[in-house]
């Protein structure tokens, strides 16, 4: 029986100070019993000779200097993982909350994980079809990739994530196991409910493990939720050979929880009050996506974050963009025009796309079409800016063509019915139809040979 320490010597926000301890180790998990019955978990975040500073996951409400018994567990935060967790709902630290009983762990794993050795990684190359033209065509999702959705409050990022989950397929002939790990950090009750319902309706819920930390749950718990979820994901992927899609929402709440805890620790802030190690902490999560050589499973991440005030230069989206392998950016103006999904393709990107598309994966002309659509759509912006100054009528015939192209691109390529599951050939065909609106000599990103094969001048559809 381990020693229990009675009482605390200080409480400050989510942090408590315990004095007179011996044998405490850095990053160790402690169990606290309040008033003899309520249990809380804490983590040692600083330790000195006989003093430990502990961060309490479930919040410090109800804690007093005298009514707490603290027990050292002797190990860092661990999660008991099991295949049984698929189909279950857990709270932010991995305890079941769906009243379906305890989960018998197959293994205990340190939730902090360990960095994957770059030598043992396998470079991701297999594309995941999402059935969404803008993503498949222009920012292809690759198995083992981390591709976040940059969104804003009120934009349909949840709907988009749910649609990706429903439609994502590894290819027609694949019989590989596919499962979803869903982690919600500080989300509204309705959002958690939306995902639960969507998973149920589409019949995938037996393949989903949900970790839910709601907006009114303790802030510190939020810091551990994604780690817990990714630990399960890694276990299922690398020990059970499954292909795991991890949805993390909302990373903004995670980062804000970190800021809150950091400031109560009295740390020196860097930008907008966020701690200097925000990058390292985000990286430690995102880098847990990937494929390991010789193992059949994979971890693919789709983190969702809401950009505060739609500002892409805010530290959270900014640092995320530096770590992840691309981003899908949602746009309020497009959303206002009822374009669904409202993906602003210009700042969106998939870094792994180039190696997972083209001949043998999708179709030989894919990269060229994508480049040309990006490049032509960028010119639409110039034409629109000019039109807003001198009026549409005064534009040159070419600029007018660009305006038409831009409108059609947003309507037919980016926009699609939420139930429309397009295959890649359909996506590319629409791409060519749109490029046909422009004169051939404007298509400077496509090889002459490919143009000869696919280019056909088209006219805009009537009745817009």
């Amino acid at each position, binding site marked *: 029986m381990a020693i229990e320490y009675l009482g605390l010597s200080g409480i400050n926000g989510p942090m408590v100070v315990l004095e007179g301890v011996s044998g405490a*180790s*850095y*990053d160790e998990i402690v169990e606290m019993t309040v008033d003899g019955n309520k249990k809380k978990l804490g983590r040692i975040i600083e*330790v000195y000779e006989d003093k430990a500073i502990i961060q309490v996951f479930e919040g410090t409400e109800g804690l007093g200097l005298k009514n707490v018994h603290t027990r050292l567990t002797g190990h860092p935060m661990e999660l008991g993982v099991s295949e049984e967790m698929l189909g279950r709902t857990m709270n932010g630290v991995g305890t079941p909350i769906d009243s379906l009983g305890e989960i018998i762990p197959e293994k205990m794993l340190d939730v*902090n994980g360990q960095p994957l050795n770059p030598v043992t990684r396998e470079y991701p190359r297999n594309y995941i079809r999402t059935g969404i033209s803008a993503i498949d065509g222009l920012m292809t999702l690759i198995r083992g990739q981390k591709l976040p959705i940059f969104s804003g409050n009120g934009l349909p990022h949840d709907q988009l994530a749910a649609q990706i989950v429903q439609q994502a397929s590894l290819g027609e002939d694949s019989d590989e196991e596919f499962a979803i790990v869903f982690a919600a950090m500080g989300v509204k009750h309705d959002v958690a409910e939306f995902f639960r319902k969507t998973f149920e309706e589409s019949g995938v819920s037996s393949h989903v493990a949900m970790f839910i930390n709601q907006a009114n749950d303790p802030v510190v718990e939020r810091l551990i939720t994604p780690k817990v979820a990714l630990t399960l994901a890694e276990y299922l992927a690398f020990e059970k050979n499954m292909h795991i899609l991890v949805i993390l929402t909302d990373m903004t709440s995670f980062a804000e929880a970190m800021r809150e805890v950091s400031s109560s620790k009295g740390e020196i802030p860097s930008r907008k009050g966020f701690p200097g190690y925000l990058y*390292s902490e985000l990286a430690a999560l995102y880098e847990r996506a990937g494929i390991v050589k010789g193992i059949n499973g994979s971890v693919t991440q789709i983190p969702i974050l809401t950009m505060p005030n739609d500002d892409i230069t805010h530290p959270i989206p900014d640092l995320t963009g530096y770590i992840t392998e691309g981003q899908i950016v949602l746009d309020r103006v497009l959303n206002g025009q009822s374009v669904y999904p409202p993906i602003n393709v210009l700042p969106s*990107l998939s870094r792994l796309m180039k190696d997972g598309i083209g001949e043998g994966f999708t179709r030989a002309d894919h990269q060229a079409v994508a480049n040309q659509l990006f*490049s032509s759509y960028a010119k639409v912006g110039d034409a629109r800016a000019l039109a807003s100054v001198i009026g549409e009528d005064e534009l040159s015939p070419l*600029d007018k063509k660009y305006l038409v192209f831009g409108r059609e691109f947003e309507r037919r390529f980016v926009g699609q019915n939420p139930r429309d599951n397009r295959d890649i050939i359909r996506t590319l065909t629409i791409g060519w139809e749109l490029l046909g609106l422009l004169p051939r000599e404007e298509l400077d990103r496509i090889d002459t040979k490919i143009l000869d094969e696919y280019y056909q001048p088209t006219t805009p559809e009537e009745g817009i």
Partner: protein
Amino acid sequence: MAKTGIIYGINGPIVYLKGDAGFTMNEMVYVGRENLVGEVIGLTSRGTTIQVYEETTGLKPGETVTGTGAPVSVTLAPGILTNIFDGIERPLSEIAKTSGAYINRGVSVDSLDTSRKWKTHMTVKKGDRVFGGTIIAEVPETPAIVHKVMVPPDKEGYVLSVAEDGEYTINDPLVTIQTMDGREEALTMTQKWPIRMARPTAKRFPASQPLITGQRILDTLFPLAKGGTAAIPGGFGTGKTMTQHQIAKWSDANIIIYIGCGERGNEMTQVLEEFSELIDPKTGNPLMDRTTLIANTSNMPVAAREASLYAGLTLAEYYRDMGYHVAIMADSTSRWAEALRELSGRLEEMPAEEGFPAYLASKLSAFYERAGMMQNLNGTEGSVTIIGAVSPQGGDFSEPVTQNTKRFVRCFWGLDKSLAYARHFPAISWLTSYSEYLNDLGPWYTEQVDKRFVDYRNRIVYLLSQESSLMEIVKLIGGDVLPDDQKLILEIAKVIRVGFLQQNAFHKDDTCVPMEKQFKMMEVILHLYKKSRSLISMGMPMSVLKEDPIFDKVIAIKYDVPNDRPDMFEDYKKQIDRFYDAVVERNA
């Protein structure tokens, strides 16, 4: 007997000891039962501060810290090339063998393979006087690179005995010398060198040769000298890593040290895979044969990230001492600066701008000043070129890392978000970028490429800057109202942008373009401009000129003319002349 101390407190990667354990500043220490690697970063009579290069989870106060008596150093010997190391020179492939897919803590592996036997050819004989830097043996390290075994910089003496040519491990004695104070000392292939100390050289040369990268916008517009320093700042997705990959692949440096500092794991895997397959056109060997990777991915411990840049730099200096031209890709120096900030925060130092420590600028300048074209101690010439990526927060170049870097580098390749959005790659902005090496390198271009090269380059830049000021007007009133000579400038600038500056890294010819072709491309573009201008001055409207496909043909030169067919350019000039004659005839 090694000195030891007892841990008093732990805060992330920072560990405190009470009292003075007798360690020295920057000494390497082993921390705790698991022997985590650490470095002494603060000493007072009351306590010692140590930064630990591995995760400190599970460490307890009361555990022992053991000194090694030496500063944090790298091991220098054959076996460095083709390898991939972590931030403190531990080989990741060996770590994978002992601890599997993940990187465990406290792994103790030799930096270099000590059992491998290298074919060795001795280059000194008995009685020779040797100095620091004298080459005592040659080892073919890879098919591309001969490793020159040198006397460590701080040793000199007379050779007493020399081993026969043969096969030796890196720890076998090769030469015995009598030092100046009469002691005998055996030399092996191995030397150790502290990472934070520059290796000594005899003399620094001014920049005189360019580092040819095969990238048109770099070689022609903003050249970098061998031994120079360059920064590539850009927001995410603008192509910093891509540009560095291209330079690592195609530049004419002998050796590439690629430091992945706080970046993505998949990127390092990609470099590893791609470079093993790609063939260096100059030597016919895999590119990996001249490359060393240092990987401290963003989820690896932050203190080792701070050390990784110095480790890479020291390896580079070692190969420079052999007489090689070495280029360092540091991706990204912002992550390194953030590691500094994080450690500084943990030490509760007074922050300067945006939480960065006040010594950021001096650390950056000390880093970049280790670059240079040098005469080595052994008389050979070698260079270390540093190309550092900068990841400014929010893509805002006014932040402290970009601004301080700008002060210490002479070549600035600013990446532009709007170019990247339009998928114009490399997205290096021709308006904000600059190179201070232009004047230094002018004579080289005049001699080695063509005497008109610098003139042509300046005319291209002038056309681009004219385009940029004309675009201000076009944005307000549209392009149609411009006079024809200005329309021509826009048209030619488009040819330059699309046909010359844009470069396709995935096209077999376009990915790396020799200087001769770069020059000829400029020549053809300027020829087209000259002829078109004289048509315009004869009163031909731009719309008539544009009926001819010649503009598109010139744009497509980059794809249509193979790199080894410079003779085809004559034909393009003739086509331009014919276009001129045809337009004159039709409209006369």
